[in-house]
């Protein structure tokens, strides 16, 4: 595999000149390319089969009355009317937009700066940035959010310190506010941005940056005028994606905002699915509206990114991206990485560690140290049943990540290269982004119960649900990866007689390794901690670790969840790091750095 990619690159480099010359004569894209159309059709059918049945359930449920047995009957517009007649629609819409925009900007700033420092410069402490990302992605959602609620809460260390040293009567930080929601959501998604952009930056050609520096541009000008501009299509796609994710997020708005009565558009969605029986119709109607908005945004984005090829910097020329010398700025860069580590990881993890060592939840005080206990760890270690759950979780998340990234490789290439059916592929694969977990779960319960092969109650059904849920994420990684690779490489391959399969396997695949690795890692880690789907779909023999964590958490075993969570995160970090090292070695052979 590695040997092949090297050979193919040099082969491409050799024919590159010829391809350029013939490019104007032989319009590569105008040829009727039957294998390409077949590939495109095949991928549309596969993704369609995965996405359309739940979409159909969604639309049907949104227009029908839900019966006590959760079946649907009749036709009604009530669910849509309820959407607009909800209380304070204007206020919650404004809150939603402020929340999603600010959280997106925060994630982009944190993740973007970090990715640039790590991949494009000679900054110290690069390993720490990766550790921060992998560990925070591996940390179960409820533990991470609860840790922040605790840290910034009324009895948390920040308010405590303020009261001790400044004003004993006040509580300056109110975590149950729009600011608290933005901070936590921003921190939560910054690893996604980091992983996506680091693969973009890693594969970027440094020639232009170096040229700018040599022509006398300052470091900041170089970043502004060259690095960020080159990453613009990827950045824009990413910003849009994170924004969509944030506007339909309901976990942080509920857990953080609800106690402070900060309503966003999804607050009512959260309430509707927690009722008994759940108001599935309302949740579906909300999702259908989101589906239309997301479709429109993607359409607009497609129009704007037609020129994306201009930004591709991996061309047929031999190149070797070199790190950018920061000079005296190195120590500032190191400090930035350190501060990010402290805020995004060390703080919440220390809160979780504290919880895991205390017999019950209590404020961080010196005097409480006397009650330190390891009983929660003993409880975890003495329950062999967690081992089986860990194995289930590993299998289903690794399987999901692999299947999703394989699909995304083909789909991302088709979409980024504007091949036949590109728009359909992109729209279809992005649709599951708007599914609330419960709505997708109910659709899959139904599908699983009627599936000709008995997958109900098995890991296969959870895997199927995960593939549908995480396809949009895999797509973003593959898509922005392909955008960077100039199509002249494939044109050259084609001229040299390579068919689509060969050009995907020998050219696009190897050059995409950084993007595919980042995507795999992200999906693997995020699938392993996903809760809403396994809670609905796991059978007695397909329980996952997140089901066990939710069970403990919901029943007040906060200490044991923290202990189990930390041990699990450690384990996942080892698995993820091992994988990452192997993949990095593969990518070394393609990029030589």
């Amino acid at each position, binding site marked *: 595999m590695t040997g092949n990619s090297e050979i193919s690159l040099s082969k491409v480099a050799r024919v590159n000149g010829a391809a350029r010359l013939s490019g104007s004569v032989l319009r590569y894209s105008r040829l009727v390319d039957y294998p390409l159309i077949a590939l495109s059709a095949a991928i549309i059918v596969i993704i369609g089969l995965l996405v359309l049945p739940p979409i159909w359930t969604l639309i049907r449920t949104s227009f029908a009355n839900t019966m006590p047995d959760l079946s649907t009957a009749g036709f009604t517009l009530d669910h849509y009317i309820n959407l607009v007649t909800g209380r304070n629609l204007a206020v919650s819409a404004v809150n939603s937009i402020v929340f999603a925009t600010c959280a997106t900007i925060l994630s982009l700033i944190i993740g973007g700066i970090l990715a640039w420092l790590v991949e494009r410069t000679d900054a110290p402490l690069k390993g720490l940035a990766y550790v921060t990302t992998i560990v925070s992605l591996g940390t179960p959602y409820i533990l991470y959010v609860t840790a922040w609620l605790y840290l910034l809460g009324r009895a948390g260390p920040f308010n405590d310190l303020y009261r001790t040293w400044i004003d004993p009567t006040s509580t300056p930080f109110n975590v149950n506010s729009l600011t608290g929601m933005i901070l936590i959501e921003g921190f939560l998604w910054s690893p996604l941005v980091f992983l996506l952009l680091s693969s973009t930056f890693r594969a970027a050609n440094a020639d232009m940056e170096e040229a700018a520096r040599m022509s006398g541009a300052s470091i900041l000008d170089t970043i502004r005028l060259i690095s960020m501009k080159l990453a613009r299509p990827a950045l824009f796609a990413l910003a849009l994606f994170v924004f969509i994710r944030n506007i339909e997020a309901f976990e942080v708005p509920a857990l953080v905002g609800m106690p402070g009565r900060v309503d966003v558009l999804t607050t009512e969605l959260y309430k509707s*699915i927690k009722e008994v029986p759940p108001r599935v119709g309302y949740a579906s109607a909300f999702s259908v509206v989101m589906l239309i908005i997301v479709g429109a945004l993607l359409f607009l984005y497609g129009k704007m990114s037609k020129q994306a090829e201009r930004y591709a910097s991996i061309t047929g020329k031999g190149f070797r991206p070199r790190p950018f010398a920061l000079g005296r700025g190195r120590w500032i860069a190191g400090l930035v990485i350190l501060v990010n580590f402290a805020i995004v990881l060390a703080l919440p993890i220390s809160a979780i560690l504290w919880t895991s060592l205390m017999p*019950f939840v209590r404020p961080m005080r010196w005097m409480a140290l006397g009650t330190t206990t390891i009983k929660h760890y003993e409880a975890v270690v003495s329950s062999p049943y967690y081992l089986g759950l860990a194995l289930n979780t590993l299998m289903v998340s690794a399987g999901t990540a692999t299947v999703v990234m394989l699909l995304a490789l083909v789909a991302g290439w088709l979409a980024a290269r504007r091949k036949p059916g590109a728009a359909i592929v992109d729209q279809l694969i992005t649709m599951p982004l708007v599914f609330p977990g419960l709505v997708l779960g109910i659709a899959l319960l139904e599908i699983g119960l009627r599936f000709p092969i008995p997958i109900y109650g098995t890991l296969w059904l959870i895997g199927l649900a995960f593939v549908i849920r995480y396809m949009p994420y895999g797509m973003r990684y593959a898509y922005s990866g392909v955008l960077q690779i100039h199509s002249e490489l494939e044109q050259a391959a084609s001229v040299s007689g390579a068919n689509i399969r060969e050009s995907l396997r020998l050219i696009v695949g190897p050059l995409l390794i950084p993007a595919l690795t980042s995507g795999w890692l992200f999906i693997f880690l995020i699938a392993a901690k996903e809760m809403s789907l396994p809670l609905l779909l796991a059978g007695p023999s397909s329980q996952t670790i997140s089901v066990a964590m939710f069970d*403990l958490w*919901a*029943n007040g075993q906060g200490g044991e969840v923290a202990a189990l969570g930390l041990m699990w995160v450690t384990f996942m970090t080892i698995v993820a790091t091992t994988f990452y090292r192997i993949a990095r070695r593969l990518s070394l052979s393609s990029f030589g750095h």
Partner: protein
Amino acid sequence: MMRFLQAFLRAAATVVIVAAVAIRPAPAQTVDANLIEAAKKEGEVVWYTTLVVTQIVRPLVQAFEKKYPGIKVSYTAAPFQEVATRIVNEGRGANVRADLFDGGATFYPINAAGFAAPYKPAAAAVYPAEFKDPSGYWTANIVQVVSPAINTDLVPASDAPKTLDDLLDSKWRGRMAWTDAPSAGGPPGFIGAVLLSLGKEKGMEFLTKLAEQRIANIPSNQRVVLDQNIGGQYPLVLCIFNYHAAISASQGAPVKWLKVLPILTFGTVAMVKNGPHPNATKLFIEFMLSEEGQKIHADAGYIPAHPNVPAKSPDLKPEVGKYEYKLVTAEMYNAHAAEWTSIYKKLFQ
């Protein structure tokens, strides 16, 4: 002197009751041999549970499997909403996997969809009438007493609310929290208990004033709210389960539950219609509700429903702790859910 005498009498009464409970001969519990035989033929029972796996589910399963070798108990744990959604979907798809389920509020959506089956356990013959459905559709397995609690580090005993009206004191404004659970043990249940105790007019007057205290709605369950109380986020919380407070207090947590409008409700166990292993299910329910099974519940910190099995801290049970309570069963909740929930939404959300 009078006060001393009262205290003495109360203590004496407690001793007598505890002794009476302890000496009362256990009724011979015989399970029909035919049932055991039929259950062994089925070999398995599938339990969809809302209880904590490590604390109660596994100890119960292990004890049952030891007593009846050859019958395996498979379980999946999930919150009651998910358990109900699953069983309803299995029933509608005519592909039933679950045999039994628990949780007070779980029963009603499943029954409304027509997927619950009746069974009158012999083990529950001694249970009080209000703990059993007259037609046998459900039987109580655990008792839940819903009450307020204070953080004793933050609230001196003299400041602790003693009556409902004390909750209206301005010092609690913005410092109280409760769960958003839509059940008898959540705010709608509390609203119901207030209306039943004070009457409609006075009750609404009280609730309107209480709403001005701006109670934080925590989007989680009673236990998580209690942890926020113990952690010092909210000095006073409403609608928590008293046995949770007792468990934490016994570990040294600064928490005390208050006998201010304690609400008595309970969790139930019920059979799924057309479950694949009906006999093993019946045998398992018999075991769960027997003195032996109920003791396992008590050891795990729950308040057992069985009248002869004391709680781990006996005074959690109203008849031992000698306190007045308001009964709000899941059934009463189900009948009034629309009214109580709409008051909750209008005044408190």
